[in-house]
């Protein structure tokens, strides 16, 4: 059985999680393949919730698969698609089935996804969601009703250390820390100095919270430019785009893996943060290559 994520956070020097993106459709064989491949190589599998506002198999569904296959799931919950009733109901279901790690996110806008005419919800925001989960942990729902049965979620959230301007983001991080989180998973970082400054900022407020640097390997200059324009919260610096542009054709994936592993090594060796969260979207099977190149296998 997998080690509970909270215990990992408390005991492990360098925590490694990877993203598991749910499938588009009812055929979950690909998701299971990724779970089987990664479950023993990482400390947690973090399952996205209609990532980029694209409708998919639910986060909770894949989390249950992770559990069934002996991995440790982290349930992503965004505020975009569900109101406070639906979020609480889903969380009760999750906890009752042993899915007890939650990552609280705002959620991308409907406009970036594949159902652009849908009504977006945002009944809660991510700070309110963190408070809500503490309320559930205390045995009550948001309306103050007593809940039957114990609940004790391990709560995490996200942050964007590369935001410009950064100050409004940091105020939000302060509010998330004040609400109480056990881990922060950052948006993809490409400038380690930015991550260092972010960690220093957090440490002034909270010396216990674990910070996992976000890693999204970039496999080509074109992809980098596309991400800068289209992926909310991602900022890839020009020197990396130049490095990728000089890569010979057909070696982009290897280069992306090399850069990611280089960053992870530096994060670990210089103790910049407490771990990493690897998001190799659509190429989950390559995550072990990154781990190996980073000396984590």
């Amino acid at each position: 059985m997998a080690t509970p994520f909270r215990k990992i956070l408390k005991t492990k020097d360098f925590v490694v999680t990877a993203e598991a993106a749910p499938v588009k459709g009812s055929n979950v064989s690909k998701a299971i393949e990724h779970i089987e491949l990664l479950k023993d190589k990482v400390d947690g599998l973090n399952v996205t919730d209609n990532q980029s506002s694209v409708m998919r198999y639910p986060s909770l569904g894949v989390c249950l698969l992770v559990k069934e296959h002996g991995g440790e799931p982290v349930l992503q919950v965004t505020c975009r698609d569900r109101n406070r009733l639906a979020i609480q109901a889903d969380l009760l279901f999750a906890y009752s089935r042993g899915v007890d790690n939650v990552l609280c996110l705002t959620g991308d806008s409907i406009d970036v996804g594949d159902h652009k005419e849908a009504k977006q919800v945002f009944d809660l925001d991510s700070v309110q969601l963190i408070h809500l989960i503490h309320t559930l942990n205390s045995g009550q729902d948001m309306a103050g009703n007593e809940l039957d049965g114990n609940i004790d979620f391990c709560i995490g959230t996200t942050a964007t250390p590369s935001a410009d301007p950064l100050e409004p983001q940091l105020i939000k991080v302060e509010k998330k820390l004040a609400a109480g989180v056990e881990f922060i998973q950052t948006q993809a970082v490409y400038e380690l100095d930015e991550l260092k400054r972010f960690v220093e900022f957090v440490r002034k407020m909270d010396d216990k919270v674990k910070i996992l640097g976000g890693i999204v390997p970039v496999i080509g200059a074109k992809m980098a430019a596309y991400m800068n324009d289209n992926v909310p919260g991602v900022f890839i610096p020009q020197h990396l785009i130049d490095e990728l542009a000089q890569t010979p054709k057909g070696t982009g994936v290897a280069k992306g893996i090399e850069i990611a592993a280089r960053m992870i090594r530096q994060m670990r060796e210089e103790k910049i943060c407490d771990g990493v969260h690897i998001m190799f979207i659509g190429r989950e099977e390559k995550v072990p290559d990154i781990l190996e190149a980073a000396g984590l296998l």
Partner: protein
Amino acid sequence: MIIAERKPMDEIKRMLAPYKKVLVAGCGTCVTVCWAGGEKEVAILASQLRLARSAEHNEISIFEASVERQCEREMVAEIKDKVTEVEAVISLACGAGVQTMSEMFEDKPVFPGVNTTFIGMPEKEGLWVEMCGACGDCFLDRTGGICPIVRCAKGLLNGPCGGTRKGGKCEIDPDKDCAWVLIYRRLEKQGRLDLMRNYYAPKNYRAVKRPGRIQAAKA
């Protein structure tokens, strides 16, 4: 004020296709100021309809009329005679105006000629921006007078999302400002950033029970 936009001509033509005598009814208040449904726009639509139907060899008689406020029964009553003469009305007022007219002339089809879009203000000539979501529980005292309910694309109450673009622009549109960056700058200027550090609990989204109804207090 209420901002509206003229509906596409094809949609208006489709609504009016069965009719030969139609009244184009304008409103002299909000939709006049936002160039969607005042006297001038009534005249333009009337001409366009005449030309379009003439080109299709399907002549139409168009009458034109405007009232100061289509959302008030007494003012709509002023054009009763004209409404009586036609088979249908196309109203260029906001949704409240269309419904007032439709309620007053129950035997007559009244069609919307504009899409009512938001409560806002002119930012510059010909450009209107949304300012208020009529949520019934005003939050502006906490945000330096900038509404995050409608000016943040996600209506967030505790600060920006992680998708803010470089320079403080919105995740969904580089031409729009991130409301929370604007709020930050405004509160910083006023020395009131503590307001942004406060935690705001989930909003009461039922402050106005739909359909809204307010009874004035007795004097």
